[in-house]
């Protein structure tokens, strides 16, 4: 059983001789570079996953994040706590079987909890850039040192 050696998408046939696993090629319009609309990373942008929990005021609010866990929760808690305008920040995962993560932010007068959260996200993104840059420089230096 040799797979069809066709280069045209429309002409290629499925390799299977067994009917229940027969497959065809993707239609040409799906082939669009390396962007993948079905990847979890792309899908994360599609849905509204943040909401403010009831009982919140401007300077003291709880935010509920869907489909997030300790990965973002703890990192975000750290960076928000680094903000001197923030009096308190903590996160929790209310139940292990629900994909929900709550962040509580209380700020001093002069800023709001939502602003503190947005600043936290911005700071964390800046941090990622620094980590990524320094890591790649270190990898390059290591490679050139080991070549010579």
């Amino acid at each position, binding site marked *: 059983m040799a*797979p*069809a050696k*066709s*280069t045209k*998408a429309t002409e*290629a046939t499925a*390799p299977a001789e*067994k009917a*229940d*696993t027969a*497959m*065809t*090629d*993707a239609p040409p319009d*799906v*082939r669009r570079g*390396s962007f*993948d609309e*079905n*990847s*979890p*990373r792309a899908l994360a*942008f599609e849905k*509204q*996953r*943040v*909401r*403010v929990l009831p009982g919140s005021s401007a300077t003291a609010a709880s935010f509920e*994040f869907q489909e*997030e*866990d*300790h*990965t*973002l929760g*703890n*990192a975000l*808690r*750290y*960076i928000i706590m*680094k*903000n*001197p305008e923030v009096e308190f920040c903590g996160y929790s995962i209310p139940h292990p079987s629900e994909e929900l993560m709550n962040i509580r932010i209380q700020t001093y007068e002069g800023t709001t909890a*939502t602003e503190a959260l947005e600043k936290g*996200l*911005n*700071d*964390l*993104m*800046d*941090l*990622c850039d*620094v*980590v*990524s840059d*320094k*890591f790649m*420089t*270190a990898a390059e230096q*290591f*490679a050139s040192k080991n070549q010579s």
Partner: protein
Amino acid sequence: MAPIQASQAELDRRKIVGINAEIVTDVTSTDFPGHWPGEDHSWDIEKFKKNFQVKMYKNDKIEANFSLVGIDAAVANALRRILISEIPSVAIERVFIYNNSSVIQDEVLAARLGLIPLKGSKAGIIDFLKWWTKPAEGEPEGSTSNDLNTIRLKLNVGCTRNKDAAPGETDPFKAYHNAHIYAKDIEFVPFGHQVEIFGSEHAVVPTNPNILIAKLRPGQCIDIEMDAIKGVGRDHAKYSPVAPASYRLLPTITITQPILGTDAEKFARCFPQGVIGFEPVTKKEAKQKGSGYVGHEGEKKAVVLDAMKDTVSRECLRHEEFQGKVKLGRVRDHFIFSVESVGQWDSDVLFVEAVKSLKSKCEALRQNLRNMPE
């Protein structure tokens, strides 16, 4: 009022997690605004840029060892968790069993096949291959599978008797053909555009050819086809691209009082090789009153050569003669990462991808936050 600037010695002291025989001390970070009165600990990207360091020790395709210095555990742990559970990789998801007369049940065989790590063209797996989606309701099964999102593999083997074997041969390797089915027997069946991308040396094959899948006896056979698709480790461990990604904190060993002679030898034996070395006590040290070296010139003393090699077994704390002479600790912001790739990604690319992934998470949530209904 200008903020108080703590001395470097004080800052270094705060970084150490104390390790004692039974308890650990100073575990949590305290570098937050308001914790130390008058000091400024607010987030400052320039300060972070200045202090953060990456030290590379090993950077092979399959394994990378490096240190991140000057980062908080919250972020280091986020990166570790992303490496394990949120970076996509390809694994066998569906197994079509046409014939399986081996003693391994169909479902057990399928579970085993799923856990076999695969490798292949990096460009093909990372960029070319897209995510598979479930068919919409009412659509036939497999209607969404195509050359862009599914890797087809097959395994068709049967066990036969070896006619040339000596009579009464009991070794299954000699008595039969195909008595042992290994991962290397899995065949890749490229189709459509995969033929161009996954050619010859870029073919999708098991990373470790010698994983035993099943044992057969004459007359038994396995005839199956497999679909491998992209997934993430949070859905199933088989999709994890690392094995494993972990970090440990840099150990510190401080010898506070001299450990000399045979005690020094015993002390060195409390640690892995290369951690503790010996030096003779110098004339100058022997002259220093109250240093504990007086009258010991030329004797062997224990010195710390390489604390990084220590496993922090705390063995040295169990012995009477070292009581109060040594302090063990770990540096809270020095993470020694070990990332071992399973074969689909280069290990350093994996880490860069993890950082990208964390950033993308923040970006998505920032967009969400801005669109949040009032």
